[in-house]
Each structure stands twice: as C-alpha cells, then as structure tokens.
C-alpha cells in the first residue's frame, strides 16, 4: 500500500491526518456547501447582503417556491423520462454488441469495435446539426424520446467498449462448455452471458444515468420548451429568470444535483467500477 499506512505513523501524525481530512473536505466542498446553505437562506438575507454569513433563518420555503413558481417539477420529470429509457436502451443494445464483439471472431470485428470506441470520443458539435435535422424531420424535436433515442445511440458506443471488455474477461470456456452442451448462440447469450454481466450492467446503469441526467448540450439542442426540457437546460433558463435570486438558483441546483448524487451514494461501488473499467466519459 502506498503511501505507508497512517496507522504505522506516530500518534501525532495520525491525529493530524484525522483532522486534515475533514478540513480538506470542507475546503474542497466549500462552493457546494455555500450553495446548499444559500438554498435555505431567506430572500431577505440576500437583499441585506448577507450572502455568506449564518442564515438568519432556515427557509425551506425556497424549495417550495421553486416548485410553485417554475416548471421545476416538469423539468425533473422530463429528466427522468429521458434518462431511464436511455439507460435501458443503451444497456440492451450494448449487451448485444458487446457480446458479438467479444465472443465472435469475424473479420471486421476490431474495425467495428474501434468504430464504436472512436465514435464515443467525437466532439458533440460535429453531430449537432445533422442530428438536430434528423430529429426535426422525424418529428421528435422537443420530445423526450427524441433526446432518448440520440442518447441511446451515442451511449451505445461507450457501453459497447465497456461491455465488450467485460465479456472478453469472462472465461471463454463457459461459452465453449455451453456449445459442447448443444446450447444455441442466442441461448448462450441469454442464459450464460447475460446473468454474468450483472455487475457490468449495474455499473453502467449508474454511470449512464449520471451522464444523461447531467447532459446539457443535447438538452439545449434537441429541446426548448419547458414541457420537454430536462432539468439541466431548465435550470439554465431559470437562471436567466432568477437574476440575483441566488436562493432560488441554489435550491434549483441542489434539486438538479440530488438524483445523481443519490444514485452515486446508493450504488457507489458500481459507479466507481464503471468509471475505472470503461474509464471514459
């Protein structure tokens, strides 16, 4: 283990470390803490210039106000509507592509694989105009499924990289054993490989959830009305309305951050596994 375990250090160092970690954490999260505190600061505090002191009272009403006076609820709902089908769709597609690329040795295998990988890195901007036109022409502009379809397609690239490598790491004998036993390829996929991919699926689903939930660019490009905008785009436009109303902006930010943070906390192990296995955003 590196660095040398702190338990082996002198007591003083140990105590210093125990203090240093929370202090560092506090500094590290200072901006976030500020926002969290502001989100429960009464508007009057801001008016009086009390931006960073102790709030004069705790105003959870800010949150109520956010929901009452803005389409925040609808934004959040839209985000879920885009995110959840995307997670399911991208996983379904990439389980299959990953399986095909990991198990079979056909000639263009690597070529197809690298195409998925490369596609995963391209700047969004090069896709923007054509994808927007396509979405328009399919009459899916401003719909959750228009966004979800694109995200599914794009994330399939990333997920394929991940899934393929994961399946490749499974013992190939499992597939051979099943083949010797006379199991058809489709059933091998369904009964042997898919159950073993559960950790990968869990890891990817959290990861994709966060990616899509946090997506701003495509939300801006493929939707523009509060009825269909997800929360990132919604928050950005609310920011245009809530000038100087930092307590509302903060409350909105906290609300927008909540689902991915909760997801991260609940599925932390999977999340990190996902990052480091696939390791690309």
């Amino acid at each position: 283990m590196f660095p040398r375990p702190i338990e082996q250090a002198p007591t003083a160092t140990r105590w210093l470390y125990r203090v240093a970690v929370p202090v560092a954490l506090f500094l590290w999260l200072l901006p976030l803490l500020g926002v969290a505190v502001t989100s429960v600061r009464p508007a009057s505090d801001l008016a009086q210039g009390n931006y960073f002191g102790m709030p004069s009272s705790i105003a959870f009403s800010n949150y109520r106000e956010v929901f009452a006076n803005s389409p925040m609820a609808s934004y959040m709902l839209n985000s879920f509507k885009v995110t959840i089908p995307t997670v399911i769709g991208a996983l379904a597609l990439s389980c299959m592509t990953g399986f095909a690329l990991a198990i079979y040795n056909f000639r263009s295998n690597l070529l197809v694989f690298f195409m998925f990988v490369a596609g995963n890195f391209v700047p969004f901007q090069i896709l923007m105009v054509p994808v927007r036109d396509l979405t328009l022409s399919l009459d899916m502009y401003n719909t959750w499924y228009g966004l979800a379809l694109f995200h599914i397609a794009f994330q399939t690239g990333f997920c394929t990289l991940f899934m393929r490598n994961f399946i490749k790491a499974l013992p190939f004998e499992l597939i051979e054993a099943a083949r010797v036993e006379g199991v058809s390829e489709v059933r091998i996929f369904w009964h042997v490989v898919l159950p073993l991919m559960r950790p990968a699926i869990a890891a990817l689903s959290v990861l994709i959830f966060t990616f899509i939930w946090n997506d701003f660019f495509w939300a801006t490009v493929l939707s523009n009305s509060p009825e269909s905008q997800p929360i990132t785009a919604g928050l950005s436009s609310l920011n245009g309305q809530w000038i100087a109303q930092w307590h509302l902006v903060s409350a909105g930010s906290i609300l927008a951050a909540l689902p991915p943070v909760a997801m991260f906390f609940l599925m932390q192990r999977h999340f990190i596994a996902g990052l480091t296995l696939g390791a690309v955003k």
Partner: protein
Amino acid sequence: MTGVSLDNVVKKFGPIAVIHGIDLRIEDGEFCVFVGPSGCGKSTLLRMVAGLEKTTAGKIHIGARDVTDIDPAERGVAMVFQTYALYPHMTVAENMGFGLRMNGHPKDVIRSKVAEASRILKLDNYLDRKPKALSGGQRQRVAIGRAIVRGPEVFLFDEPLSNLDAELRVDMRIEIARLHKEIGATMIYVTHDQVEAMTLADKIVVLRAGRIEQVGTPMQLYADPDNRFVAGFIGSPSMNFLDGVVDGGKVRIPALGGGPVDTGVALPPDGHKVVVGLRPQHLAVAPGPSDIVLDIRERLGGVSYDYLDTPQGERLIVETRDDAVIDEGTPVVVTFDATQALFFDVDTERRLR
C-alpha cells in the same frame, strides 16, 4: 461402437501448422491420455475432437459417424475443462442440468439424471450451492457431473486436475480412475503430469510438436520406449543420458569409466557414438576414487537423490534407497545394471533394438 479415430488430421492456425497429420485409434471404453511438453498440441487435438476447433484436413470419426464438420453439440461428446467452466450463477444442480434443459428435456428427466450423477460423485449435499461456495475438488466433481449427465459417448478432459493442490490431485485422480471403471465410456485425457498419465491410462499418446512420438500402455512406454524423447519424458526423475562409443560390439561409456558393456542390441559399427540411457534407480554410488564427484545429495528420508558431475561435464542423477550421509564434493564410484541400459542412435534418437 463409440471409439474415436483420427485419420491424418491436420490443424493450422493461419499459416502455422500445429498438428501435422495425426493417425490414432481409440477403442470403445478406452482411457487414452495425451502427454507431451507444453505447446505440443495436446489441447488442440482434444478440442478438435470436441469440435471446438475446426479440423483443417483429415477426418475424425466418433463411432461410425464422420464428425469432422459437425457442431460440437452434435458429436455426443462432453468436455471437462481445466478451469472447470462452471456457470457461476447457477447452482450445482442447475449447472449439471443446464445442457439437458437447453435441449428441451422434461424437468423430471433432468432431475433424475442429475440425482443419479450427483450420487455417483457424492455431490448430494451440495446440489443447491453455487460453485463459488465449493472447494476446488468439489468444483471439479461438478464439472465431471455436468459431463456425465448428458450420457455422452466420449469424455474429454483437458488437464482437469492441474488447478488443484497436490493432495487433492491425488484424491481426484483416484476418483477419475474409479469413474472410468464405473461408467466405462471412452475417455480422452490431456495432462502433463507424469503420475496421472502413468496411473490412469490404458493407452498413452506421447506428442511432440504436433506429431505422435509413441503410443502404448504406460508400462510399454516406461520399459520399452521407442526413442530418446519418450524415454526421457516418461519416468521421474528422468532417465540419465550419457555418451557411449561402440567398441568391439560393446559400448564403452567414458563418463563412467569401467569396461565396455554388452548390449544385446544391433549397434552401429565400431567407433560410432551412441546414447546410453540409464534410469536413476538403476545406478548406484559408493565413495571411492573416481573422476565423478558428488555435487549435491538430496536426502528425503526414505530416498536420496545424488547429483553427480562427470568429468565430461555431464550430469547424472542417482536414486538411492538409503539415507547414508556422503559429503558433497566426495568422489564417488558409479555402478549400474547393464541389462537395464537402453541405447539410442545419436542422430535419429531412435532406440537401438
């Protein structure tokens, strides 16, 4: 009739030939072991029989059927992998019944066959466990059970015990021997463990670089090897090989000094070289004036191994049944039982008979 026969089978990976035309007949019910150094093609050959590798040329028959181009599933073979290849998400019972289930056998048939196999393999208490919760030996038994359940005509084993520790390996070896006795099916078994090959096989096939060196019963190979490779490969510690010179119809062995030995085999003309093979247990040492020096004596209790250096720079191993102390570095006199010596041609390495 469920023997296996290979007719001039060839396997190429891309341009590289790995199996160079092998002919082999394995009888119905026979236990056939493939041995050979790493990379000689044992696994490849086995996988060709299983259908997991395409056969480049030649024919493979199982029983009377030509299976050369047939899917693994339809060959009536079952395979046990070195890594067990158990499905980690299924219980032991599900693992064993999986093949039958996928091929649409009714539930109760599956259940009874699994029960039967688990009885044979003493797995009854573990049927509901996942492989993770089993020891190495138990896992290996499940892998075998999975093979048994489908009632195949031919069992294929690829180094099934090499992942077990020494003690367990002995137990499982005995269990496989018993299994073969019990179900009597044809079995092909790949290993690089001497002891497994010697103790399990009805017939050993010694492979080397994709070619068969010799086929025979264990004792045939041990006592009567066809060539130097087989002689050196079978038996542990390996046979000592020394240079010899034909001298008046006898063979002189410069390293051991002493007079020429009678051979009773057809030797090349005088002055030609031969290779003399002597098993460690057919040699004996005693301290005495000599050019040969005891380098290291390894005393294991019941038996000692002496490593000797000859003046020619050759190295000899001698197995001794006592544990007397001889100091390392002592000159020793080596005696041997000339009737046990084998002789090989220097160039072709064929046995001289």
